[in-house]
């Protein structure tokens, strides 16, 4: 506020970021209606499933799990976006992260909420889900999931909320005379009496940095125990010691890709070009490439170590996975989800943003397919002297899957109308700091690049 230039910058920032909260165009309502319709359709499919039981799905005694578990792993995977971008980059003081943290944290919260529903939809007796609390036993990997996913959801909500407080206060102060009393009340409540006093600011910053440190191990534990649901079972392909880290890296990988997609959408819709620049896309693409290479390495380790020895059941699995009926999916993941995105990131012939977003979309599609290829083929391998199992999802499963994805976008879209999608106070602060002491920031920026 000390410099005229910053004042302009700050005003412009506020105006750009807060405008979507005040104005809503027709396209938005159309989108919400469409998403509501898809969610409603998914809900109808779920009612059918409740009525007939899991008979309505393609799962049977041999292939006991299907799309719901695939979606579960996928959504919990992309929830790692928030943790990585905001927590890890905050802890490592990567300055460029500031304008994208809010979106990343929001992806986290929404993705966990949708993902956590999936195992409940998968239950044969959803009416007894409370047995998990009354009779729960901690020897079961499923119980570890419940504990760490609920901690992760709680932690992420706190971590999303804390940096929002000054922005909520800003919205509260900027509300005009005409706004409804309800809206005013809500923002006043959410701002919890924030007056931007030095003491408040000090406490908030401490709380944020503590949460940033706490959330990282919780996030790592979440995807580790998600993998344990599989790797604690005596099945080919799951009986693996690297499954924990394999899933965590996969989660970070698809998480970064999701942020890239969300970034490009809101950059366009909310006119955030000034704050989310090509640099953010490029920096994120380097992270994407890094996690891609680690994931590729782990994939090769995983299949080479079992493929070299060819134990009977593992050989059955590799046969249907690499050459048999699941081969199209497996190679779609390898080529479409790893090789092509890697080329798109490395070779910079085409314009940056479309190129990287294409890579991100491919990665997310590839990672969904990869989760399918992890869950289904293993279950198809016969454990007794019988034929391979088969699984074809029914319309109920596809509808619920579509409903879940629509639900994810819907919740995100609703939040995007309530929350400022860019952390205004942090971005403004960073800009002020930059102008106050240019030399050290410049050095850090170069390093971050």
């Amino acid at each position: 506020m000390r410099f005229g230039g910053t004042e302009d910058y700050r005003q412009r920032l506020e105006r750009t970021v807060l405008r979507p909260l005040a104005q809503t165009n027709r396209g938005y309502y159309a989108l919400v209606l469409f998403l509501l319709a898809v969610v409603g359709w998914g809900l109808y499919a779920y009612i059918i499933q409740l009525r007939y039981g899991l008979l309505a799905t393609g799962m049977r005694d041999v292939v006991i799990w299907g799309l719901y578990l695939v979606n579960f792993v996928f959504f919990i995977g992309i929830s790692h976006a928030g943790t990585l971008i905001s927590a890890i980059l905050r802890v490592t003081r990567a300055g460029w992260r500031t304008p994208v943290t809010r979106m990343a944290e929001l992806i986290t919260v929404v993705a966990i909420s949708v993902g956590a529903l999936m195992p409940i939809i998968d239950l044969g007796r959803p009416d007894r889900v409370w047995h998990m609390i009354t009779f729960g036993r901690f020897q079961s990997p499923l119980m570890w999931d419940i504990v760490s996913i609920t901690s992760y959801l709680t932690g992420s909500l706190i971590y999303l909320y804390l940096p929002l407080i000054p922005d909520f206060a800003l919205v509260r102060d900027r509300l005009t005379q005409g706004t409804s009393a309800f809206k005013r009340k809500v923002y006043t409540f959410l701002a919890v009496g924030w007056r931007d006093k030095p003491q408040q600011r000090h406490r908030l910053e401490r709380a944020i940095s503590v949460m940033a440190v706490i959330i990282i191990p919780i996030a790592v534990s979440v995807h580790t125990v998600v993998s344990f649901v599989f790797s604690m079972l005596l099945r080919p392909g799951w009986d693996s010691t690297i499954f924990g880290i394999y899933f965590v890296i996969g989660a970070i990988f698809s998480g970064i890709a999701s942020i890239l997609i969300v970034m490009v959408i809101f950059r366009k819709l909310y006119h955030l070009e000034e704050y989310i620049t090509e640099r953010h896309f490029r920096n994120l693409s380097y992270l994407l490439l890094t996690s891609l290479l680690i994931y590729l390495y782990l994939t090769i380790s995983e299949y080479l170590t079992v493929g070299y020895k060819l134990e009977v059941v593992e050989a059955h699995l590799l046969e249907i996975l690499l050459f048999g009926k699941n081969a199209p999916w497996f190679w779609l993941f390898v080529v479409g989800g790893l090789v092509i995105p890697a080329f798109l990131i490395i070779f910079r012939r085409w314009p940056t943003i479309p190129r990287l977003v294409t890579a991100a979309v491919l990665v997310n599609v590839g990672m969904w397919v990869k989760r399918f290829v992890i869950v289904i083929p293993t279950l198809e391998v016969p454990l007794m002297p019988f034929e391979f199992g088969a699984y074809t999802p029914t319309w109920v499963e596809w509808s619920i899957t579509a409903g879940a994805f629509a639900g994810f976008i819907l919740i995100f879209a609703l939040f995007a109308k309530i929350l400022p999608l860019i952390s205004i106070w942090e971005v403004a602060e960073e800009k002020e700091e930059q102008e106050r002491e240019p030399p050290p920031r410049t050095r850090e920026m170069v390093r971050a690049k």
Partner: protein
Amino acid sequence: MRDKNNGITRRQFIKRSVGAAGLFAFLSAPLFSVLTRGKASAEPADTAPTKESIRAWCMVIDLKKCEGCVTIDSPPQCTQACISGHFVPKGQEWIQVYEVDLPGGGTYFMPTPCYQCENAPCVNVCPVAATYHDKDGVVLVDHHRCIGCRMCMGACPYHRRFFNWGTPELPPEAAFAEYSPLYPVPAIKGTVIKCMFCAHFLRDGKLPYCVAGCPMKALYMGDLNEDVANNGVEVVKLSRFLDENNAYRYKEELGTQPRVWYLPGHGQGFGRKPDDPRQFKEPEWSWGGEGYDHRPGPWPWGEASK
């Protein structure tokens, strides 16, 4: 408190270390309980009977005698007796007879009940303790507690658990049965079900349906504590019987410690050759029904079949 250049203070370091240690201890607590469980059950059941346990039920299956009932031109009678005795939902075979290939081109028949493993993977992974060992070492399922997550089915390396995907199709008389985990009739939608060694009969001193139903007397019900086994016509000393016949357990290397032993052949004429004209028949459900293979309507585009 916090110096930007020096990182963290000692107080912060101690606080965080204690926190991390606590978190680790909390997260690893289930691991320890699993490990101790494994150890306790690793002792042979016959040398270490628990205080309450008076029986340690086991089964011996003499593969030399089993002919898959192809000789009498009927479905396997063990499976058939089990189905009619328990009103098993269509498609499930709690004791199932597999035809397994032999190296010379022939085959042999292998009846597979639930193996009632001592270190049962299914019991370990159940999140609500709906599946458990009863005092006699039989793995039971409480169908009023089961939430239908199917972790146990994923864990079972023998594919011996079945799921009631929809409302089970049962004959009317099944409704008169009084449900208990020992006699899970009638089957309940959305829960996991399996062979339970006819625990309701065992407690009354009767033989299970499959053992009584086998025309070849190939199945023996035994008690590891008392060291006897009985197929309905002869009583044998279990330990000697197992030793003399080179008994083995299926997939023993997995460490699940099944309580079902198989007696392999010694060159006797059992099983069948590839050119054998006799039919191996699927079991029958006298009350009919479509089983869980069909999918009901209303579907957005007509009735879907398989």
